[in-house]
């Protein structure tokens, strides 16, 4: 693969009489800029490939034709004039030409307030009423997108949106259509924007210089930046951790609009959730006062029909507060907090510390996570603390810790650019890590061979050079066969194996048993393809492996990850540019919440519970004796609640009723708890079982650090004031701890971060000051001068032997296979527009408008066989329950499979899923169980 090299040649040219020397390949515009000469542009944006269409930047290079300086490269001895009467008149005329059809009111002046055309008109002193030509009427508007307004009359056809869509986001939606005056930007084959394949990432509206593509108002009236307050923060959603600037109206305490902000991890890009999903924080259903369950609503049970499992009422995303609120009464903070502390303390005294447990959340900041686990460990006196990472990547982390001694990624996703080969497996990257996907798509378009392995043909598969559709749950067979080929054809890295690994012999013996022909019978990929792809992978100088929950959420999740790690070790693809292992993290702070110790078997920074020295370290730091026994994991805690061994729970921002497998069991378990305190921003399904509900703050209302999938620790800043009496989460933890007899007091998030980093060597040296503005990768030994360590383990692993360990594994089928009664395979996952249990995204106007109701996807051939079509209702039933929802035809889903997104409370996927666990990571098998499909009537 040939990647372009930066030129080392220097060319010298004269610009307006001044001599300028620049590297070869520099454009005249860039050269002039470096000499302090500004040339006006419209179609050019330094982030985009120059195209030279608007002709605003033309300069005289002594040729017949004036040259567009944004594209023309500087050459040796060139004489450039950037201004003259001729050039000035040309630019002025161009501006007039563009203004003749321009709408009287530019939507951009009303929105972000940075209309470049009107700015030029002001510079040239053009009075629009003097323009001698009547406007045409052929250029219309398109208001069909829920988030972006299209005004063709303001479009100057500068091509920026097209390049942003094609070359930054790689969505390939926008193009040009027509000729002459009829030239237009067009979505797909000239479809209305709202009906097109547009994914509403908003990159086009972000780069548009005029009023042609602008963001619609989502909260209070959108208006120019100068009239708003600017807060540099982060996206609250996924593990990509995009940097965002929020523009706030202080009077109404509202986010008005969001913009991508420069950061090495996201390069100003955003997806639909980050750009348009900010309004949930102002939703009227926000909790604003502490709530205590009324006497009459004991014994506890579900309150809303959806949680009761009844089918009635209109399908719809949001809980009807009329159904649930009567069960609670408002309380003062004093009363509520005293009650929580005394009930938890009572349980501890009666039944011992291990009858208590806490669920933190990967949505919380590092500080909140740290403090929460400290509360459970030092105050409750147990290690029964866990969070939703258990449900997404626990198996990946188990495998990584076992083999290479560290659970984090070994390289950042944007380094895919340096890879010859990228493998993406079990990851619907374009929907779940959209901005990370843009880097992968970009690499695939510029020389990196992309191999996508999945049971579903997802968005990223469309960019793949090799797409392998495997039978669900057959990953181990495929990877063993690939390794069989690599070893058989001697495509392995002997030096690397010798110097940096152990256990190769055992792996070689095991994979001998997996010739591609055998694997073909299990995973359905032709043996020839397995060989071809193995060779492509084996011959790469640098290969990087990305994986998602399609790998981890199986009873063989740890085995699947072990195989991927072995692939990388076998070929020496760790620790160099373009190589690495990258499990893509789900929530914005999955990495950080784990780093901070929200895990039952480790203290902060993965220091093991049960190791006396470690225990001593934390006992000294926290000043109390600690429980030497590792605690229970998420599903074990729920099982404990069901059995009655877990009696009291504190949940901070988790919603296990929707997120945990086998909801019918979870319902019984939650109802069985003696005491449950739920701290959240909305009254969640889980909160229906609570004795006390504490109104918390949303991401927008607090300071905190968050660690993204790349290990980048970044600061989220307070953008809004909390509603009503809602209080900061860390303060509530402190209050409960103090009321339970353990004084906790901090001046603010910064002080908590200080305590955390003092106990977590990987975070040593980081503070709020050096984390601004774009964060640091941990570890970062020299925060003053470096961005942190991008590549880990080039010189060995943090294991006792310093070597990476091959763990050979045999293929094992999933826990529950299809049979005559339940003939389909159920797979669960996410949609681009929604987030987890939907509490945030379904309360976001734009996101809800795009995907308003529960759907499942089936292959059109299967639908036809059942005489069903898109939009019909079906009942999906497993041995654990039934849900009713709409069906949508999708060729991406293989025949015999059903895909259900788990965001929808009215048809919760986890009523169906199997809570069988991976024995190592204790992660449930969300991605596989047997299901039956039957036509259903629409709900009444």
């Amino acid at each position, binding site marked *: 693969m040939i990647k372009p090299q930066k030129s080392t040649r220097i060319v010298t040219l004269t610009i307006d009489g001044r001599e300028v020397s620049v590297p070869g390949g520099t454009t005249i515009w860039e050269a002039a800029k470096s000499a302090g000469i500004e040339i006006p542009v419209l179609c050019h944006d330094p982030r985009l490939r120059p*195209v*030279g*269409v*608007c*002709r*605003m930047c*033309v300069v005289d290079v002594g040729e*017949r*034709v*004036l040259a*567009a300086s944004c*594209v*023309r*490269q500087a050459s040796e001895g060139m004489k450039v004039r950037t201004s003259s009467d001729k050039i000035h*008149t*040309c630019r002025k*005329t*161009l501006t007039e*030409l*563009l203004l*003749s*059809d321009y709408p009287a009111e530019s939507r951009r002046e009303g929105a972000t307030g940075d209309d470049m055309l009107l700015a030029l008109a002001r510079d040239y002193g053009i009075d629009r009423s003097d323009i*001698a*030509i*009547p406007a*045409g009427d052929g250029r219309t508007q398109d208001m069909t997108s829920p988030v972006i307004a299209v005004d063709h009359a303001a479009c*100057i*056809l500068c*091509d920026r949106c097209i390049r942003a869509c094609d070359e930054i986001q790689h969505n390939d939606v926008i*193009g*040009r259509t*027509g*000729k*002459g*005056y*009829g*030239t237009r930007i067009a979505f797909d084959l000239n479809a209305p924007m709202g009906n097109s394949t547009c994914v509403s990432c908003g990159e086009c509206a972000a780069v548009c210089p005029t009023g042609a593509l602008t963001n619609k108002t989502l909260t209070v009236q959108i208006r120019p930046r100068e009239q708003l307050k600017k807060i540099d923060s982060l996206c609250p959603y996924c593990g990509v951790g995009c940097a965002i600037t929020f523009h706030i109206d202080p009077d109404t305490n509202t986010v008005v609009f969001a913009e991508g902000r420069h950061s090495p991890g996201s390069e100003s890009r955003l997806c639909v959730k980050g750009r348009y999903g900010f309004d949930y924080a102002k939703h009227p259903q926000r909790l604003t006062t502490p709530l205590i369950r009324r006497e009459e609503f004991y014994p506890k049970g579900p309150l809303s029909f959806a949680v009761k499992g009844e089918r009635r009422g209109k399908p719809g995303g949001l809980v009807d507060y009329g159904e649930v609120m009567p069960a609670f009464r408002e309380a003062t903070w004093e009363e509520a907090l005293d009650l929580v502390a005394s009930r938890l303390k009572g349980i501890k005294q009666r039944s011992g510390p291990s009858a208590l447990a806490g669920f933190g959340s990967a949505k919380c900041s590092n500080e909140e996570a740290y403090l929460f686990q400290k509360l459970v460990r030092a105050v409750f006196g147990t290690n029964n603390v866990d969070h939703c990472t258990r449900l997404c990547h626990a198996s990946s982390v188990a495998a990584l810790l076992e083999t290479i001694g560290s659970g984090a990624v070994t390289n950042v996703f944007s380094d895919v650019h340096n890879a010859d080969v990228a493998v993406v497996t079990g990851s619907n990257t374009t929907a779940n890590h959209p901005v990370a996907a843009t880097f992968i798509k970009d690499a695939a378009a510029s020389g990196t061979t992309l191999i996508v392995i999945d049971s579903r043909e997802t968005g990223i598969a469309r960019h793949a050079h090799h797409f392998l559709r495997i039978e669900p749950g057959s990953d181990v067979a495929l990877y063993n066969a690939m390794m069989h080929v690599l070893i058989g054809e001697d495509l392995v890295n002997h030096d690397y194996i010798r110097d940096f690994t152990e256990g190769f012999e055992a792996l070689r013996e095991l994979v001998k048993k997996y010739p591609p022909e055998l694997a073909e019978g299990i995973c359905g990929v032709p043996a020839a393809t397995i060989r071809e792809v193995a060779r492509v992978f084996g011959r790469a100088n640098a290969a990087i492996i990305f994986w998602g929950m399609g790998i981890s959420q199986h009873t063989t999740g740890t085995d699947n990850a072990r195989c991927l790690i072995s692939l990388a070790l076998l070929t020496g693809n760790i620790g160099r540019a373009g190589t690495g292992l990258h499990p893509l993290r789900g929530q914005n702070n999955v990495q950080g919440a784990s780093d901070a110790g929200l895990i039952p078997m480790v203290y902060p920074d993965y220091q093991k519970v049960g190791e006396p020295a470690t225990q001593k370290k934390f006992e000294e730091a926290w000043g109390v004796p600690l429980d030497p026994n590792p605690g229970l994991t998420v599903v074990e805690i729920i099982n404990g609640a069901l059995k009655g061994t877990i009696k009291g729970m504190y949940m901070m921002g988790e919603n296990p009723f929707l997120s945990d497998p086998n909801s019918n069991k979870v319902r019984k378990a939650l109802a069985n708890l003696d005491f449950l305190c739920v701290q959240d921003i909305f009254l969640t399904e889980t909160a229906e079982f609570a004795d006390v509900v504490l109104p918390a703050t949303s991401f927008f209302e607090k300071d905190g650090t968050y660690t993204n999938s790349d290990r980048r620790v970044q600061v989220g800043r307070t953008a809004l004031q909390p509603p009503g009496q809602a209080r900061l989460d860390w303060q509530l933890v402190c209050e409960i701890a103090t009321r339970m007899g353990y004084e906790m007091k901090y001046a603010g998030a910064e002080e908590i971060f200080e305590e955390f980093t003092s106990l977590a060597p990987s975070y040593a040296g980081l503070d709020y000051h050096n984390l601004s503005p774009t964060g640091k990768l941990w570890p970062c030994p020299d925060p003053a001068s470096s961005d942190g360590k991008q590549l880990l383990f080039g010189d060995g692993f943090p294991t006792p032997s310093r070597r990476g360990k091959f763990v050979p594994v045999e293929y094992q089928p999933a826990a529950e296979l299809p049979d005559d009664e339940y003939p389909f395979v159920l797979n669960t996952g996410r949609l681009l527009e929604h987030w987890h249990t939907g509490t945030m995204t379904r309360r976001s106007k734009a996101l809800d408008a795009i995907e308003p109701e529960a759907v499942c996807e089936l292959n059109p051939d299967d639908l036809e066989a059942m005489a069903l079509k898109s939009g019909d209702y079906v009942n999906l039933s497993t041995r654990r329950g039934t849900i009713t929802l709409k069906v949508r035809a999708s060729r991406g889903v293989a025949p015999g499979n059903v895909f259900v997104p788990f965001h929808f409370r009215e048809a919760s996927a986890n009523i169906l899923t199997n809570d069988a666990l991976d024995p190592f990571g204790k992660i449930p098998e969300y991605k596989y169980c047997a299901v039956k499909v039957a036509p259903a009537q629409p709900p009444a």
Partner: protein
Amino acid sequence: MAYPHAHPREARVLSKHFGEKDAIPIDGWIERGGYKALDKALAASPDDITQIVKDSGLRGRGGAGFPTGLKWSFMPKDGGKPNYLACNADESEPGTFKDREIMRWTPHQLIEGCIISSYAIRAKHAYIYIRGEFVDVVRILNQAVVEAYERGYLGKNIKGSGYDLDLTVHLGAGAYIAGEETGLLNSLEGRRAEPRIKPPFPAQRGAFGMPTTVNNVETLAAVPHIVLNGADWYRQWGTSKSPGTKLFSCCGHLQRPGNYEVPLDFNLRDLVFDLCGGPPKGRQLLALIPGGSSVPIMTADEIDCDVSYEGIEAAGSMLGSGGLIAMDDSTCMVRAVRRMVEFYAHESCGQCTNCREGTSWLAKILRRIERGQGREEDLPLLLDIGANMAGKTICPLSDSAAVPVVSAIQKFGREFEAHIQDGRCTAVN
């Protein structure tokens, strides 16, 4: 003689067999001496062929008149990347219909020219990009390509020479701008026919990013004759700067419109009045466009010049593609120019602001002048827009659109003023 009009004063080289049905199939063509030049070429080296063409002084017939041999010499010889030949058969310039007739009557003349030229530039694949509306011509050309493959003039190891060439006929989809060479390349690649920024030029980065030569049909059709008979033979016609013969597609107000092939030192006035018979009886010649709608309009008394590139230029216009349009005194110049501008406004690819917006401004202003609603400021406005459209865009279509307007106002200003001041047309009924 079946072909509409012929004249003894013509010098018929390319058009010698126009009108002869038997010249279309390969056997008939071989009987007429076809493919002899190819044998000769394959026996020589590619660089020898380029040299002969250079020596002949052949200039591109697509409009710009760039020396063909020189253009070929820009092609890399190291073979690091595949080279391509693209024959521009998109002929869409208003008033131009010569390439169509070459392909209709003598398809093998073009194919032979493509093979020799490909050999000279070391291309192993040639494309003929042909205007999609030429439905019957496409059929003829496709048949001729099949025949050439059957006889071993195309394909592997052509005539035992060891040289391989494939030829693909690719249909355009109806845009004038696809005739601009880089627009053509984009269209060939399956993109919108939007002209590319130059540099890089096609010889550096052309079709599919590879070095490419783009030549017009008439240019390539002349190559076999030059290779067979030598550069000196070709130079017997024309001037030292414009050697050889050229086809003129003559239309408009003429008694005998059609294609005429004349030496490049032929007198333009003779071409109009003698060969084409001048305007219809009782009419006066008012204006003449000598080289397709993209060149400046001439008045009747400017046309006593020779038809060489430099001759017409000295007389104030350009040879262009050789599409001659005659206008007699029944013509409303405002209307004629407005229609030409509307053509360009319709055909602008829409990339450059000057061109996309400028053409539609010109059209709007001309429409109001034609309707008698013009204003005093309109003429300076037209000239001003014209000046800011020319020499500033990605391709010269923008210039082409301004040219007829500017030249008509300069030369027929009176007629425009009459429309503006009196709301009256000066055309003679």
